Every structure is written in structure tokens, then in C-alpha cells.
């Protein structure tokens, strides 16, 4: 075998702490190495051309690239060796950047370690063999989880592209946070006016099947062929009959139910349609407040419903859908500000969250768009906004910036002036983060045109004084302690991962960060893909995002799905297990442990033998460790190869 070794400088990223020329020099002495050199940028066009040329000119059978992590450029170099006429699996990489040059400054130790990693790659490559993918059929349907603006956009783009879409939304209506907003920055256009038509499109699109008030229970299968169990939670109303007339709401005697849509400002009835523009516009009973459920008697709604839709005995239903790709768009939740005892810990009714304030500003909100204090209904004159509540705060384990709260606070200060011209707003901020198009201009307008007074500093405490609230903060630009007697305090609460995100990630087999936000494949180059093929991300479930970015990602995820499905068939990764049937004694252990059910037991001339279903095997290698005979081997990661790597490291 003839092997070529290419040691990358990565500009100065590697070269600064690794002597790449000497690594190449050392590599020349390794078994089967026919050629070795150092390269400025291997992944650049001249870099790749150099590899191809060397393969052709020196007649190489395999290539080792010592550079960045294979998670970064393995595909790039596989394509390059393929262009050179080799099988794409005749490539190995040695990670001498992330695992060497970037984590230590000792040039001697690094150079030595880099050479050892090259040796390890060479020993593995010597035992590689050409592998060829198999192709399989795709189910051309997509599941979208979460019906906020990101999920809506992804669903519509996929459906418009000709795919069948299954949209699963946890609450009884789609719309997400955006449906609760009054106006949106930086244009201050009405939120429901721009979102409403899209929601209607979802309802009317013949290719979209909407399951509202439903959650994903279980996900099986793999890219191209997922099988999803969806739990449709009991609404106690037969939605095929409910016309959304709202008569039940008028008559329901239980009028003190929690109003989730209005963020708990105001109350609703036990049977309710969350808001007039809800999609689907169907009623559901909140059993926690319904007298029929609590006391066993009432039944008013059943009596008044003209379509006879009420079903008190309804139970959850689990359905199964087959899809080929999944877009996750489960959005975010708000930080629970009651963790801040110094801001009243939720004890003062006139200290509210930003989203509650959106409901007070909204013409369709509980106050009809008149800003009134929750405590006494009085119109506030002095409104204090406090930014970064539950963001950029290590003490509550939220060190990150939520990204959009500076902007929405400026918006709310502007809207406050619009609603109450004689009002005065104050905004406590640490920094103003407004890096979008027309964004900084927008926050400037809040100050310059609308006279909001911005105070640079955090607030240390809020407490009642008479019927007002005393806000004590600092003006760090002046170096002074300041106090404001406010009528209303609005906390710009930060974004957190949506409740249940880690559990959903585990079902999807994708990763999440320590705060519960889903991890993208690469933060710059693959922002809507995950490390699980066929699963994509859109919107704030990946990290806090405003509407423009959420919509952008919804479309990006849809284009990834359309790209995936534009192929006739998908190719399976050939790095899968194979059974050597001569050694197999048919004990069946591999079939029992395979988490994907990829091993089936077959009959070969009267003897049981194991066989791996190529399109189902995911290449985890669990079976290989289980087999007492060493009969199953994972291609490209055989026992032989791994032990050769071990040996390469341990020989001295």
C-alpha cells in the first residue's frame, strides 16, 4: 500500500505551535508511507489540488490529512480523494488542531504528539478498505414540531414546495409568542396582522395536517424513514364538530380559569377558545377548573353547544405518522422572575413581565388595549423598564444575552408613549444590543423622539411605597445611586429553553447545550442542521432569536428538507456492521442488543445466523462488542483497526 501524508499549517493556527515540516519528515519513516509534505491550507483549492495531484503522480492508495477535526472537514477531504480516483473511505484524518495546537503552547510536545497522531491514522488507514453505499427509498413527508412563527414558516415553505407536512403544536392554537405580541420592532407593525394570514394559510393548506394540543411521544427510525407516535391530548370537545361559535364560553359558570394566552393577566372560562384568531378555532375544557370534573356536576356547555361537541369522557389518543424528515421549532420560554426576591419575587402585582405588558398593550388583550395597572386598574404615569432580568446573570445560571429584549423594551417604551402621551418611561440597561438593520436607529428613536429616559445601570431593589413602587438602581455613567417612584415596573425577562426541551432532544437523538437549547451541527456553517441526519432546527429552540431570524431559519430548514427530498433515493452510510457467517454461532445476542432492530436472524442451511439490514444499521458498533465470537465487525472501526491504533500509540 502507498500512503500520502499531508500536514496542514492552517495558516498559523497549527504551524505556530507544531513544527509541521518535522511531522511530515517523521511520517516518511512510517510503514507504507510513500509521500509526506506540509501544506499551508489543505482545505483550500490549491491544497485539495495538491492532494489530488500527489495521488495521481505517486500512485497513492490512501491519504492521511493531519489538520483540523474530522468533524470539520472529513467530508471535504473524502470528496477530494474521490476526485483523485480513490474510494472515499481511503482517507484518515489526524486532528492536530483542536486536539493539539489549540490546547497547548509547548512546541516540542505538540510536534511529538502530532506525529504520534499521524502514526495512529496511518496504522488505521493500512487496514481500511473501500466501502460502497447502498441506496434506499424515502418517505416524502415532513414533521414540524412547534407552531410558532418559525414552525409556521417551515411548514408553509415545505408544503408550498410540494411536501406533505404534519405540524404538531403543544397548545391548542398555533402562533407561539408572536401571536401574543402587540406590535413588532423595528417597524412597529401589528403582530397579528402579519402573523394572522400565515396562520390561516396553515389551516387552509391542503398539504398540512395540523395536530394542535398534541405532543410527540416517541420517535423511531432514521433519516428518510422516521416513525413518530403523537399523543393527541384530550380536549373534551369533539373538534370535528366544534364550529368555534363560542356559545359555551358565554355560558360557562367557571369564569376564574387561568388564562395562559394572556399570561395570567385576566381570567378566562374553563371551556375556552384561547383567542379570537386561534388556529384551529376550537374550544377545549381546562379540567383543572371545570365544575363537571371538580364537583361532578354542571354540564352547562354540553347543554348549550349547538353542535353537540362536548365529550367529558374523552381520553388521550396516540397516533402514528411516517415521515422522512423532522423540523424542530419548539421556541423558548420566559425566565421566571420570581427567582429575584429583590424585585418582589412575584409579590407585587404591579411588577409584571414584558410579555404580560404586551397583552396589556394589545387591543385584543384583557384590557382592550388600555394600559391599566393590575393592582387597581389605574393608568400608569411613570413606567420603569428593567432590562437583562434573568439574562447575563451568572448568579441565576443565565450568563447569556437573550438578544431581543433590548429591542422589545425600546418598542414597549415607544408604545407606552403612544398609549399614554403624558407618561414618562425609564429604562435601566447595561448595554444596548441592537445589531440588526434599522435596529439601532429604532432604540435611538425611543430616546430621541419618544423621550424615554435611559439609565445605564442595574436595579438592586423594588419595593412598594404607598401605592407606588420604589425602584432603586444605579446610574453608573454618573456614578450615583438613583431612585424612581413608579406606577408600573416591566421586567424584560430573558429567554430560556422551552420546557421539556431536553426530553424532546433525547427522543430526537440530538444534542442540547447546558441550558437546554438544541445544538446545531456547526455554529457558522450548518446552523439549521443537527448531528442526526434528517433532523433540522428552526427558530428560538436553538437559542434566543427575534422574528426575522426565526423566520429566516424556518425557511432555511425547509430548504434543507426540500434539498434532501429532491434526491430520488438516499444513500446509506456504509460504515455499518457486517456478520462473518462462518464464525457466527447463531446465539442471537447481537439481535437482542441492537437499539435499531437492525440485526435479523436468518436460516442458513438449517443453522441460525445473524444478518445486518444495511439500510437500518446506524453504525454504532454495540453489536460488535456483544458478539462472543467476534463475528460482527463494524466496517471502518473493526477490532483490528482499533487495536492497531492502540498499538501505534503504545509501542515505544
Amino acid at each position, binding site marked *: 500500500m502507498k500512503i500520502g501524508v499531508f500536514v496542514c499549517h492552517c495558516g498559523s493556527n497549527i504551524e505556530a505551535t507544531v513544527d509541521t515540516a518535522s511531522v511530515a519528515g517523521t511520517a516518511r519513516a512510517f510503514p507504507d508511507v510513500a509521500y509526506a509534505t506540509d501544506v499551508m491550507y489543505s482545505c483550500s483549492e490549491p491544497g485539495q489540488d495538491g492532494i489530488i495531484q500527489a495521488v495521481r503522480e505517486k500512485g497513492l492508495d490512501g491519504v492521511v490529512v493531519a489538520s483540523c477535526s474530522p468533524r470539520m472537514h472529513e467530508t471535504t477531504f473524502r470528496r477530494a480523494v474521490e476526485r483523485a480516483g480513490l474510494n472515499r473511505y481511503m482517507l484518515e484524518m489526524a486532528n492536530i488542531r483542536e486536539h493539539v495546537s489549540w490546547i497547548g503552547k509547548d512546541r516540542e510536545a505538540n510536534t511529538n504528539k502530532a506525529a504520534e497522531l499521524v502514526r495512529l491514522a496511518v496504522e488505521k488507514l493500512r487496514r481500511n478498505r473501500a466501502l460502497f453505499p447502498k441506496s434506499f427509498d424515502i418517505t416524502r413527508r415532513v414533521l414540524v414540531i412547534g407552531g410558532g412563527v418559525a414552525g409556521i414558516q417551515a411548514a408553509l415553505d415545505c408544503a408550498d414546495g410540494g411536501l406533505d407536512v404534519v405540524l404538531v403544536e403543544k397548545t391548542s392554537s398555533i402562533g407561539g409568542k408572536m401571536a401574543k405580541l402587540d406590535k413588532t420592532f423595528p417597524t412597529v407593525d401589528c403582530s397579528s396582522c402579519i402573523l394572522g394570514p400565515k396562520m390561516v394559510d396553515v389551516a387552509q393548506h391542503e398539504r398540512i395536517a395540523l395536530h394542535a394540543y398534541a405532543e410527540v411521544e416517541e420517535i423511531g427510525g432514521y433519516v428518510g424513514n422516521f416513525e413518530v407516535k403523537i399523543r393527541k391530548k384530550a380536549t373534551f370537545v369533539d373538534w370535528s364538530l366544534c364550529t368555534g361559535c363560542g356559545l359555551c364560553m358565554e355560558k360557562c359558570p367557571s369564569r376564574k380559569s387561568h388564562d395562559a394566552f394572556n399570561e395570567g393577566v385576566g381570567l378566562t372560562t374553563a371551556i375556552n377558545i384561547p383567542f379570537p384568531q386561534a388556529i384551529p378555532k376550537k374550544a377545549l375544557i381546562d379540567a383543572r377548573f371545570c365544575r363537571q370534573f371538580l364537583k361532578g356536576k354542571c354540564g352547562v356547555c354540553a347543554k348549550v353547544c349547538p353542535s353537540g361537541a362536548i365529550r367529558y369522557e374523552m381520553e388521550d389518543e396516540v397516533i402514528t405518522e411516517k415521515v422522512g424528515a423532522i423540523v424542530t421549532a419548539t421556541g423558548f420560554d420566559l425566565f421566571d422572575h420570581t427567582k429575584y*426576591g429583590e424585585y418582589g419575587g412575584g409579590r407585587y402585582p404591579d411588577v409584571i413581565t414584558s410579555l404580560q405588558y404586551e397583552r396589556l398593550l394589545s387591543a385584543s388583550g384583557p384590557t382592550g388595549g388600555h394600559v391599566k395597572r393590575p393592582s387597581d386598574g389605574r393608568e400608569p404615569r411613570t413606567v420603569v423598564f428593567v432590562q437583562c432580568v434573568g439574562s447575563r446573570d451568572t448568579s441565576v445560571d443565565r450568563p447569556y444575552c437573550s438578544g431581543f429584549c433590548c429591542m422589545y423594551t425600546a418598542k414597549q417604551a415607544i408604545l407606552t408613549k403612544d398609549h399614554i402621551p403624558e407618561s414618562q418611561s425609564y429604562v435601566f440597561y447595561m448595554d444596548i444590543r441592537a445589531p440588526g438593520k434599522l435596529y439601532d436607529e429604532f432604540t435611538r428613536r425611543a430616546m430621541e423622539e419618544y423621550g424615554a429616559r435611559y439609565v445605564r445601570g442595574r436595579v438592586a431593589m423594588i419595593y412598594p411605597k404607598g401605592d407606588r413602587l420604589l425602584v432603586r438602581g444605579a446610574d453608573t455613567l454618573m456614578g450615583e445611586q438613583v431612585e424612581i417612584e413608579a406606577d408600573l415596573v416591566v421586567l424584560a425577562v430573558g429567554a430560556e429553553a422551552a420546557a421539556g426541551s431536553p426530553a424532546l432532544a433525547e427522543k430526537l437523538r440530538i444534542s442540547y447545550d447546558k441550558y437546554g437549547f438544541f445544538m446545531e451541527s456547526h455554529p457558522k456553517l450548518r446552523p439549521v442542521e443537527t448531528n442526526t441526519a434528517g433532523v433540522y432546527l428552526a427558530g428560538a429552540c436553538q437559542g434566543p432569536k427575534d422574528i426575522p431570524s426565526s423566520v429566516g431559519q424556518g425557511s432555511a430548514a425547509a430548504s434543507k428538507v426540500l434539498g434532501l427530498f429532491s434526491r430520488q433515493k438516499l444513500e446509506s452510510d456504509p460504515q455499518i456492521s457486517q456478520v462473518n457467517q462462518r464464525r457466527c454461532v447463531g446465539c442471537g445476542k447481537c439481535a437482542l442488543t441492537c437499539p435499531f432492530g437492525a440485526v435479523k436472524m436468518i436460516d442458513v442451511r438449517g443453522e441460525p445466523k445473524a444478518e445486518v439490514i444495511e439500510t437500518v444499521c446506524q453504525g454504532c458498533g454495540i453489536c460488535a462488542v456483544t458478539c462472543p465470537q467476534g463475528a460482527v465487525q463494524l466496517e471502518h472501526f473493526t477490532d483490528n483497526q482499533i487495536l492497531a491504533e492502540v498499538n501505534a500509540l503504545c509501542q515505544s
Partner: protein
Amino acid sequence: MSQALTYAYYPGCSGLGTSREYDQSTRAVCDALGIGLADIPDWSCCGSSPAHTVDHVLSAALAARNLAKVEAMGRDTAVTPCPSCLTNLRTASHRMADNAFRERTNALLDTPCRNTVTAKSVLQILAEDVGLDALARKVVKPLAGLRVAAYYGCIMNRPPEVMRFDDHENPMAMDGILAALGADVRPFPLKVECCGASYGVARRDIVARLSGRLLAAAEDVGAEMVATACPLCQMNLDLRQGQINSAGGTSHHMPVLYFTQLMGLALGVPEERLGLDKVCVSPRGALRAAAERAAAETAKGSKA
């Protein structure tokens, strides 16, 4: 409270002087509840605030001398009424968890401290070890009708990593105790704001301003009395109330009692053991008004 509780007791220097009534009422209340207080023999000053402004090892050593004495008594819990002493004792323990620090501290001492003692406030053991239910059962003269604000002072609960007691922004232990005694406890917003601490002598202006704000806030929530758990707070709010009034042009007349004095009243402890006569602003008026209100309430209740 099944078994008799006994603790090593650290009265603190002010308990011998300016807060004598706190010490007296604490002993009387514990007596009434069957709690044993075993005085730490030959205890010395914990270092109070000045020591830690000089050096943290010196401050810890002054506290640790006393902790070592508790160890010699064979006990593992020391209680003190005074939050300032408590802070010094707990901070010393907290820092001595670091072996190097403990060695440096012990180098200043005749008898080394093993750091096996936990210091707690009298408030904490009453709220946690005795418990509100047991307490309520012992009440013979409820404080019905008494509008009171519970004031904890700045360091009873802060910083939470060291003090490990109650909520650090909105503590409720004293509120709970007073409510169990039947009082009308007002939601006092400045429970943990500083009163001016020991600056009364050197910088009287500071105390006038900070304690004045506390009295105003207590009035704002309709309290007719402030209950405290700290000798400095009590002294600043009560003894210096005249100074506060003349500095701020106010006319506060707010009785300020130790919560243990109020407990004693409700538990039927004879007044002379509670030192009620030792406070400056007399609580008589407020107590009388409360009793009248309670009587009127009962009359109304029995008519209906």
C-alpha cells in the same frame, strides 16, 4: 418538640449592657419553652465589626476562641441572639473550612479550634427546632390586634452561602413566629436593609438617615411597632429615635421591641423578666391599642 433541647449559649457583649433586655427575654422565653441554654464558660468578645476591618485571621481567631470553648463543652451547636456575633462565628467557621486558613487562625490561639461547631441564631432555633405549631400551642395571651413589622437587619440572612437561613431577600421566620403569637404582621418591604450599624457614635448622620427610612417604611405599611432581632438595630431605631426625628424633621413615635420580648408577653412570662421598661419609646400605648382592637373584634364576632 419532644425532648428537651439544650444549646451552648453565647450572649454577646451587648447582652451585658445596651441589649440587656434581649438577653433577659431570650432566657425567659427559652425557659418557658423548656429550652436549656448552657452559657459558654468564660466566653470572650467575638470580634464584632471592628476586627474584620483589620484582618480576617484576627477576626476569625477572636471568634474561634469561643467555638473552641463550645467544643470543650462537648456540644456542636452554639446559639446567640446577636446577628453580629452570629456573622463572626459563622464566617470564621466558613473560612476555617479551608485548612490553611484554619491553621493560620489556630496559630493565634492557646487552644486550637477543630471547627466542629455550628452557630445559629436564637431566631433560627425557635423557628426551626421548636417550630411554629408547638409555639402556637404555648400561647396564653395572644398578641391579637398588634400591627407589627418584623425587621431582620442586614446580616441575619446575608450572604446566603454563609448564613444558610431563611430567604435572603424576604425572610419569613420572625413573621411566622409573630403570626403564631396572634399578631397582625405587616408585609414590611425593608426587612433586610441596613439600619446604620455601628456608625451611631462616629457618624450619627448615617444612622439618622438609614434608620429614619426604616421607621417611615414601617409606618407606611401601617405598623404600630417594630420587632427586631438585633441589638444594634434596636438601639439605632429606639434609643436614637429622638436623634432621627431632630435630624429629619420627623415625629416618629414607634416602639421597637425585641421579638423575644413579644414572645414572652404572649407566652405569659412575667413582664419584669422581659425588660420592657428598658426600651426608650414605651410600647404600652401600642399594646393597649391592640388589646382594645382585639376586644372590639371579639365583641363584633360574638354578635354576628
